């Protein structure tokens, strides 16, 4: 149970991206997280657009078919290429899941 004021305080503290699960190499992870953060911030209202942007950016950067899911309530079970999986929370509100296969 989170009280509204606490929630506000939480959002204030949780402004950074938090990598929940990742098996990428450090440089790749950094870049991927950057891409996700910029896309989500740009298209805060339209997550579909944001995922599109993330996918295209990752495709351009690392090549290959990337997949992207963004939202604040979902479950997943994915098969991915090794070293291409990232599950990151952005801004304490939105989870972004990207993987390549």
């Amino acid at each position: 149970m989170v009280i509204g004021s606490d929630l506000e305080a939480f959002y204030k503290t949780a402004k950074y991206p938090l990598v929940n699960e990742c098996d990428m190499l450090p440089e790749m992870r950094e870049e991927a997280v950057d891409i996700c953060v910029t896309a989500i911030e740009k298209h805060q209202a339209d997550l579909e657009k944001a995922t599109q942007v993330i996918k295209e950016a990752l495709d351009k950067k690392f090549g290959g078919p990337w997949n992207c899911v963004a939202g604040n309530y979902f479950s997943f079970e994915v098969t991915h290429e090794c070293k291409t999986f990232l599950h990151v929370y952005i801004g304490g509100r939105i989870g972004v899941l990207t993987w390549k296969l």
Partner: protein
Amino acid sequence: MNLVQTLKRVKEKENNESLRRPRALSRHVSTLKKRGATSRNGNTASTGPQTIELKTNKDSNDDFILPVRELVRPPNQLHLSQADLAEDIACLLTASNPAAPSNVARYNLRERAYKLDSSVDHIIHHYSSQGWLMHVDSEQAQRQSANEQVQAQPEPETREGATEVEAALPNPDPTQLRNQFNYSDRAAQTPVYPPRERGTMTEPPPRADASGHCSDWAIHDAYVADLERQRCAKEQAEAKSSAASKGAASSTADDEGQAALDRLAQDVDNGLHVSPATERAIHIIERMTEQNLHRDVIMDFKYWDDPADAIRVHEGTLLPLWKFETEAGRGRHVTALAWSPRYADLLVAGYGSFDAAVQGSGAVACFTLKNPSAPEFLMTTRSGVMCLHFHPHHSNLLAVGLHDGCVLVLDVRQPSARPLYEATAAGGKHMDAVAAVRWAAGEDSGLRSLAFYSVSADGHIAHWTLATSTLVRQDFKRLHDGVQSDNAVEGDACEGYIGGTCLDFHKDQEHLFLVGSEDARLYKCSKTSNSQFRATYEGHAGAVYAVHWNTCHPDSFLSASADWTVKLWHNNCSQAVITLDLGCPVGDAAWAPYSATVLAAAGEDGRVQVFDLAHNKVEPLSAQKIVGKAALTRLAFNAHHPILLVGDDKGCIHCLKLSPNLRRIATNAGSHDFGAARLDAIIDVALKSSVPDTDEGA
């Protein structure tokens, strides 16, 4: 039926009929022709052209329809006038050929006479022609018409009116005609291979599965946990910085880790570090493997007896069994060999060099018959090993004499690199190579008083006592030439002193011992008196290499020498009782442990000679070459098994099995003295035979 068709039909008919060619018909036709020609001459004559055209006789309903012919009058035809033409000429047609001979006579062989042959061919062919008409309904005609249609098709535009009809008709013949312009030169026809598909499967990039969920509260919890973690890290960093400022608070832990690392490195240096149980298991497996590998040798060792011995009573053989070699001893002389007094399968070998000019490090290696490939115990020494001796009761204690004069005591149970005791230069080592070491029997009431004797090439006989941590040396005696001893007191310390070469204690009277020397003499000493020798035995012409008391007979001993002989001595006799000439320097000789009369000698020619004095006092029962080019240096009988060890100067130890003839025990009147009585008798006989010589010599 139009005219053309009719004509065709007629032609065909004639064609068909001409094929059959009935005789009567042709006759009939010819008649008709004649008649037609005559009857129509009147009609056509008025027109008067050269050609006469005959019209078809439409009226005739019979089967014979005349063919249409254009008669061309030849230029040489008779020109007949009207009168001539009008004249009737009676023309009689007969079926017989007027030109044919009617009186053909042929000789008949059966009747032996010429006979008239009535069968004359009357047919004359005036004209014949192959026809080329065919019936319109016949199969051939249909084929031809079909062909004509196909040929007519490529240009359907040229025939107006017929296109619609032909388009409606299906193509009667589907055969395609070749496009004659679509061709290539033969020279340009290179093979064109059909494209083939080819591919390899590569391994897909590795994949992994991931699952999870994302929700508001999961995100919240993750952030809270992360914040907590950050806070902890910050606190730790603060604590660490404070600790660093405090100084070396954590140095003790570091030291412990360093010690553990050192231990680990030490283990790595020592080789594989395994638990004792594992080590034991590995040991057993190694022995099992060796046993499987050397199964035939083991069977020989256990069961093989030379069947030839039953026939050849005065000969015996040695069967080579195992060979023991180790890397540490390769190329070195086997300078010492001994069996463990406690374990019948354990042997120890010392490696070094007898050559004083070529000296290097040495080694002591313990082998077991169960594992001939690797030594159980191996210790390298800085100087060459010259002699060694197992303690008869404390079978783990091994006394070792080195070439540099040191004596060591090893514990062969502990595979450590250090000896238990070591007599160094400070502890009073010998000045020259230690030639022999022997544990003193009867003195070991406790570990404190364990002692052994050593004899060295510097002439000293030393007595060593094992103290708590050192060896205590006590000079027992110095071998010297009695004549020159007076001069030596004031002169050179080494003057007149003789290097000892071998040492052996009496089996029963434990104070008595024999020392062999380089001056070819044997000295009998007693522990009780170190002032003088009990006896001196002379007779050898070269350095004595080995001396051994008989194992079963109390008063006899043998000596092996560089003068190619092995001599048998009696305690009470200053001269050799029996001399055995081996034909080469004798490296070592030994009594057999099971019989007083059997001895073996190892010669430098690589032969092992086994004598049984009960059977032959001159010739060996067996003289067998063991090694090709090497010299044999040491020899040792096993006390429990009928096997013999010989060492060569290449660092190899050979294990030999004695055949049954070589392990006979000489019995005398049923007494169980292992041939001692027999040896007594032999010695008596030998002494009696040699008494006159000694008398003469005296």
